[in-house]
């Protein structure tokens, strides 16, 4: 129990630290790198929660693909450190901070209040081969969603190519 707690708190501190760096660092490329570290840490947490295959997918899709795309795009732009990383404006700034604080409070409060909603149950034993059960479930109960995702990915591929073809400069501000 003690080792488990130490593992959890170490992992949680890792995640919270890098998530904080993600949103607070002025240089966008650093943000992307911190976020990819957060993703890798989350994959570790998923693994610990008996979602081994999902953890692998998290690494491949998020850390290995999406964040590489983010870093590549940021290099494409050649952005320097932003002097004013956070948006300003007195009223809107106040409103933003206020709403962020309220929403964060709601999220934390919901998490705190959900103690006891799920009854104390004897820990259910996950089957020996979770990945196999997961795939059987994916191709039977969720077959429709799976096929729909296939079509969604096709649409996104077509859309991304179309958007990237937009010619720049013809209607520029100046």
């Amino acid at each position, binding site marked *: 129990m003690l080792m488990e707690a130490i593992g959890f708190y170490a992992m949680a501190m890792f995640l919270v630290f890098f998530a904080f760096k993600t949103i607070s660092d002025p240089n966008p490329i650093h943000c992307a790198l911190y976020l990819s570290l957060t993703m890798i840490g989350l994959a*570790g947490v998923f693994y*610990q929660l008996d979602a081994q295959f999902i953890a692998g997918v998290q690494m491949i*899709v998020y850390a*290995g*693909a999406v964040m590489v795309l983010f870093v590549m795009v940021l290099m494409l732009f050649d952005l320097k450190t932003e002097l004013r990383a956070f948006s300003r404006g007195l009223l809107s700034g106040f409103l933003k901070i206020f709403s962020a604080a309220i929403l964060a409070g709601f999220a934390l409060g919901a998490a705190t209040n959900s103690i006891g909603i799920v009854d104390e149950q004897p820990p259910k034993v996950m089957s020996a081969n979770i990945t196999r059960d997961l795939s059987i479930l994916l*191709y039977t109960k969720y077959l429709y969603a799976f096929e729909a995702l296939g079509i969604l990915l096709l649409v996104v*591929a077509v859309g991304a*190519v179309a958007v990237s073809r937009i010619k720049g400069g013809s209607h520029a501000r100046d």
Partner: protein
Amino acid sequence: MSQLVPVIVLSIFVVIFGIIIELVALLCSTAGKKSATKLESYECGLPSDTSGTTRIPIKFYLTAILFILFDIEIIFMYPWALTYGDFISSGLGLYILGSMGFFLLVFIFGLFWEVKSKALEWE
């Protein structure tokens, strides 16, 4: 959890190993004169011109996004490959083949469209 500990330990070990090697190299390095020219980015001997944005072709970015989309489709095939034998031996072979066949059809259509629309052309 117990399976994850060695992975974390090995990663930390490798990082420490790398840092130690770099530190040793830093200690043993021959001291040279640090001139502004030496610290400049290497550009074949011409005076470096680091001002101005480096213009990177949009192609790289487009390749990366298409990679993400196809990568996800490939990842969906892994659980399929894992349970393919189970489905066949329980008599559901045609079902699993058909359900993946539709997905693959969409995949092939997407790839065909990308090739056709010259999104994958490099010159």
